[in-house]
Each structure stands twice: as structure tokens, then as C-alpha cells.
């Protein structure tokens, strides 16, 4: 036994337990982090660096360098690499959280100043660029109508395509459809807007309307609905289908009465996520709906506004009052999208398909 212990000994650490390497204390990473932040701030102050981002970057470099040097000295290079990897992973997490947190924080804190009942219930009719006041009512109407129309078009087609892929599709055609659904997911929103522009407005000669925008939104929504519905239908256990068919139920009734009800929770979730996604699209609205300061309840004729378009419009105006309105509308938009997301995920958890295992 004594051979083993001496072999494991690192020589310098005579007083330590024989089988363990010398290790840094548990507080070491925290200590190095605190030390490098302090150093970073000191260097930033001494060097008169105006941007706090630089202070953070300096602290980060110090932290990673310091961790590597100290760990190499105490624990050896393999442990040092491990610790550097750990600190890089933590650092990347922190680096990513800062802007994302700042985004949400800025939107909420600036948006809440503008947000009130008046903002939600009035349009921009007669509001001058420099004036405070005005609201998003017309934009909310536009968003709801455009998204609603897009869903009415995209959801049935998407559902049936997914049903085809899971229940009927075989061979080359189904593979092709799957591939193009995937590719369609990646179509930039501005391209789908240009497509509708080319067909609906340039070639067919219709004018700008909420409906034209919803056509483009439907194109963006379609592949998302197909993908999520397809995943959900695949989760329905085959035994259910077989049991139903064995009772002599026609296939279409099996799908309608057994397969779809089993997976309805997941399908609903997918549809709501798709709605949340297209509700935030600006580019198609910019190209096809044209924007409007007034309330237009009819999506089939005349220009409309929409929440994301309104944010952009107010940003372009560029006065302080307009910026405030833009933040307010951004908050309304984020709240709308987030509520849809959270409700959708709630439904998914509540109605998770029973996979039979």
C-alpha cells in the first residue's frame, strides 16, 4: 500500500491526504471572478474608458487568464483546461444574459411609462409627430385581423399537409414535401412579402390591404404549423389507430375522431407559437399593408397598421414623443407574444399526449 500512496503523491504536498491532488479551495472561482471584476473596474477608471462594456471585457479576460494561471500552478494543466472551459461556459452565459436582460428590461421600463388606457384605446388620428399622446388601438386592430386571416388560411392547409405526411404520405413525394416544408421555414419574411407584392399587387393589380399582408403572413405561418402538427401526430400511439380501424371505423373518421383529439393539445400549442411568431413580423406589413394613422376595421380594403409596423413607423419619425410611443407599442407587442407563448406551453403541458408508455 505504501508504494501506491507514494506514487500518487505529488511530492510537494506532503501534509495532504495521499490520494488527492492539490486542489484549489471551493471559493477560488468566485474569488478570482471578484478579483478580476475589481481589477477591471480599476483599469477602466484609471484608463478613462467610457464604455462599461470594455470594463466587463477586461474583467472577463483577466478572469479567464487568472483562472488558467492559478490552476496550472496549483492543480496541473488538465485541471486548468477544465476550469477554463467551465469559466468560459459560465462567461458565455453571463455575456449572453446581459444584452437579453437589457433588452427586456429597457422595453418594460420605457414602455410602461407610455402605456395606459388612453394609449390602448386611441389611434394616431390627428396626433402630430412632436405631440405626446396618440395610441396603438388601430395597430392592435390591424394585427389581430391580419394574424387572424393568416391563421384562417394557414392552419387548415398546414393541418391537412401534416395529416398527409403522417397518415398517408409514402415515398418520394412525401420526402419532397418534408424537405420543402423545412426549407420554407427559412424563407425570410421580406421575401414572402415580395412574392405577394409581385403576384397580388403588381400582377393582379390589387391595392394595399390588410388581406395582402395576411397572405404573406400565411406563407410564413404554414411551415411552422406543418412541422409542429407533424411532430404531434407522430406521437399518437399506433395502437389507437389500429384499434379504431379494427372496429371498422373508416380511416378519415379515425383521423378525425381518434388521432386529432389525442394530439389536439400539442397541435394547439404549435398553432399558437406560429401565431406568436407572425404577430411580430414587420417586413410583409411594410410592403403590403402600407401603414395607416387611422382606424381601419376592414382588412380587405385600404391600408392598415399593425403593432410591429407601428413600432417601426414611430422609430422612423424620430422625435422623443414618437420614441416613447414606439417603446409603448413594443411592450404591448412583447406582452402579446409572450402571453401567447406561455399559454401555448401551458396547454402543451396540460394536454400532453399520452404515449402509452
Amino acid at each position, binding site marked *: 500500500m505504501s508504494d501506491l500512496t507514494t506514487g500518487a503523491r505529488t511530492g510537494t504536498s506532503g501534509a495532504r491526504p495521499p490520494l488527492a491532488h492539490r486542489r484549489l479551495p471551493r471559493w477560488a472561482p468566485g474569488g478570482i471572478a471578484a478579483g478580476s471584476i475589481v481589477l477591471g473596474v480599476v483599469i477602466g477608471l484609471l484608463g478613462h474608458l467610457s464604455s462599461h462594456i470594455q470594463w466587463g471585457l477586461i474583467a472577463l479576460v483577466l478572469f479567464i487568464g487568472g483562472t488558467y494561471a492559478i490552476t496550472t500552478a496549483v492543480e496541473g494543466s488538465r485541471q486548468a483546461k477544465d476550469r477554463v472551459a467551465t469559466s468560459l461556459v459560465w462567461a458565455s452565459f453571463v455575456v449572453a444574459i446581459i444584452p437579453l436582460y437589457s433588452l427586456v428590461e429597457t422595453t418594460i421600463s420605457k414602455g410602461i411609462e407610455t402605456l395606459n388606457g388612453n394609449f390602448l384605446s386611441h389611434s394616431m388620428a390627428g396626433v402630430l409627430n412632436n405631440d405626446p399622446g396618440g395610441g396603438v388601438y388601430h395597430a392592435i386592430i390591424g394585427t389581430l385581423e391580419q394574424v387572424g386571416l393568416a391563421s384562417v388560411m394557414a392552419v387548415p392547409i398546414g393541418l391537412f399537409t401534416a395529416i398527409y405526411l403522417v397518415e398517408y404520405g409514402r415515398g418520394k413525394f412525401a420526402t419532397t414535401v418534408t424537405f420543402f416544408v423545412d426549407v420554407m421555414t427559412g424563407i425570410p419574411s*421580406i421575401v414572402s412579402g415580395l412574392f405577394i407584392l409581385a403576384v397580388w399587387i403588381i400582377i393582379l393589380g390589387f391595392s394595399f390591404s390588410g388581406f395582402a399582408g395576411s397572405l404573406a403572413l400565411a406563407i410564413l405561418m404554414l411551415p411552422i404549423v406543418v412541422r409542429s402538427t407533424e411532430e404531434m401526430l407522430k406521437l399518437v400511439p399506433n395502437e389507437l389507430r389500429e384499434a379504431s380501424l379494427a372496429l371498422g371505423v373508416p380511416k378519415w373518421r379515425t383521423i378525425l375522431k381518434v388521432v386529432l383529439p389525442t394530439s389536439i393539445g400539442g397541435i394547439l400549442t404549435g398553432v399558437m407559437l406560429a401565431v406568436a411568431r407572425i404577430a411580430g413580423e414587420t417586413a410583409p406589413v411594410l410592403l403590403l399593408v402600407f401603414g395607416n394613422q387611422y382606424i381601419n376595421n376592414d382588412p380587405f380594403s385600404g391600408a392598415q397598421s399593425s403593432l410591429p409596423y407601428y413600432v417601426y413607423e414611430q422609430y422612423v419619425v424620430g422625435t422623443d414623443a414618437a420614441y416613447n410611443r414606439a417603446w409603448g407599442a413594443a411592450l404591448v407587442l412583447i406582452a402579446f407574444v409572450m402571453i401567447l407563448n406561455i399559454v401555448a406551453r401551458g396547454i402543451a403541458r396540460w394536454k400532453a399526449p399520452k404515449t402509452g408508455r
Partner: protein
Amino acid sequence: MDIAPAESAPPPSAKSRSNFTRPGDRIFASLASGSSILLLLIMGAIALFLTTRAIYAISQDHANFFTTFEWNADSTPPVFGIAVLAYGTVISSVIAMILAVPIAVGIALFISHYAPRRLATPLAYIVDLLAAVPSIVYGLWGALFLVPHLGGLNLWLDHYLSWTVIFDQSNPGTAARSLFTVGILLAIMILPVITNVSGEVFRQVPRMHEEAALALGATRWEVIRLSVLPFARSGIISASMLGLGRALGETMAVATVLSSSPVLTAHLLDPEGGTFAQNIASKFGEASDFGRDALIASGLVLFIITLLVNGAARLIIARRKEYSGANA
């Protein structure tokens, strides 16, 4: 080739035994396949209509469509080209990828392997939610918050790194409405997307591989390098390419942040340049009928680029179906 997974293979229908099919079945089946055909038709129509308008526009162009810098589609004669736009689109997306991919992989690793379990689940949830933040909100934040806050960093980069040419600012102190800022903003936008997809792949690494590496005495980093990353490589690549597709086609975030101009410069901190999507969004308002066709031509180029990138990503995923990150 009946190798479809058992769960997705419904039992053979009665059709194979007799020629009798119920009318309901026939209607339903044709609705289903009709929808699929419609979807393919839409894809085909997008390509067809964009191409016809684009060919018309390019035929009227009095300059080389691919090498001209300016975009004056409404002047007589029309002179427009995509050189600056293509450059700006590629450069900003490349910056975004360089920044976002390592960090996104880091966050995904953090959620799947480093974070305490109690933290990991809510984190994954938050990242999911962040992926849903509309791009115009990123654009607004980028223009009103990020741009003023990057001024100091730009000066610093210009001061110490101007010898690299790319970080040389022609007029130090100009607002950070540059391709570099756009790249940073795009990186922030595509972080949640890449994190989501690659995180999903990391969670599918067989437990056995990791335990085997641990049993051999590997440190946590060695476990990740030896078992997790090799397994997840194709997943990371396809996640990155999905993010790239998003970055290439991003409109509003670029349109709000970039101060565009028909200048192609290697100085990334200068407020110059443009991207396909940004150019369409900002030129559309005052475009004449022909100007719209010209913008459609540039949209077609963007469409083809994103099609290639996304197709490649999907092919990589499809080749290793078991890591499917395809439902992103």
C-alpha cells in the same frame, strides 16, 4: 423502401384488399394530398414569380447587376446593383456567426451540463421565450440602446486595433450605425435559436458515452470534448446554419440600426453599406413600379442564398436523423 419508423406507419388501409373506398375517405385523402401539393405549388410560385419580375428588372438595368454599387432603380436610365448589399449581408452575418456560435454553444452546454438542475429547466424555458421576441423590438433596442452604448467600444477598437484595417474608423466618434454593430445585434438575435437547437442535440448524447469517459478519469471538459462535441457536431453545424439563415434575411433590426450608403468598405466600424433586406425595406417607400421590380430582383438573390443555406442545414440534419433538431 418501407423503413419508416413503426409509430408513424399507419396500418395498411382496406384499399389494398378491394377497390372499394368510402367517399369520405377519398375526400379526406384528396384534401390531405391537395394541401401538400398546394404547399409545393406555393414554393414553386415564389421562385417563378420572383424570377420573372427579376429577369424583367435586370434586363432594364443599365449597369452590371452584380458589380454595381449604387441602387438608383428610379433614375433614367436605371442603374442598380447588389455588390454593396451582398457584401453587407455576408459580412454582418459572418460577424454574427463568429460572435454567436461559440457563445450559443457555451450557453447550450451550460444548460445541459453545467447549470444546477434547478436552474437549467427555467433557463431553457427563458431561452425559448427569447427566441420569440419580435425582430422589430431587437431593432428598436439596438438603435436606441445598443448604438449609443457601443460608441466607447468603437473608439477603443479604433484606437488600439486600427492597424487591422477592419477596426479602423475613418471618422472616429461617428455613431455606431455600422455593419459591425449590425453583426453584434444579429448575434444577439440568433443566440436563442442556435442555443435551442444545439441544446436539444446535447441532451441526446448517450449517457453511456459520458459515463465511460468519466470512468476513465476524464475531467468534465474532457468528457465534453471526447463524447459530447463529436456526437453533437452535425447538430451544432445545422443549428448554426439555421441561425445564419435567420441572420441573412433579417430586415427590421438592420433597417433600424444601419446608416446605409452605397459604399463598400473594409472599415467595418464606418456607418456605411447595406444589406439585401434592409435595402428593400428602406427603398420600398419611395420606389416606383419599376423600382419595386428592381427590389424584387435583389429579393430573389436573397431568397436563393437563404434557400441554399437552409437546404444545406436540413440535409445535414436529415443525414443524421436521430439527432433531429429539425423541429426548430
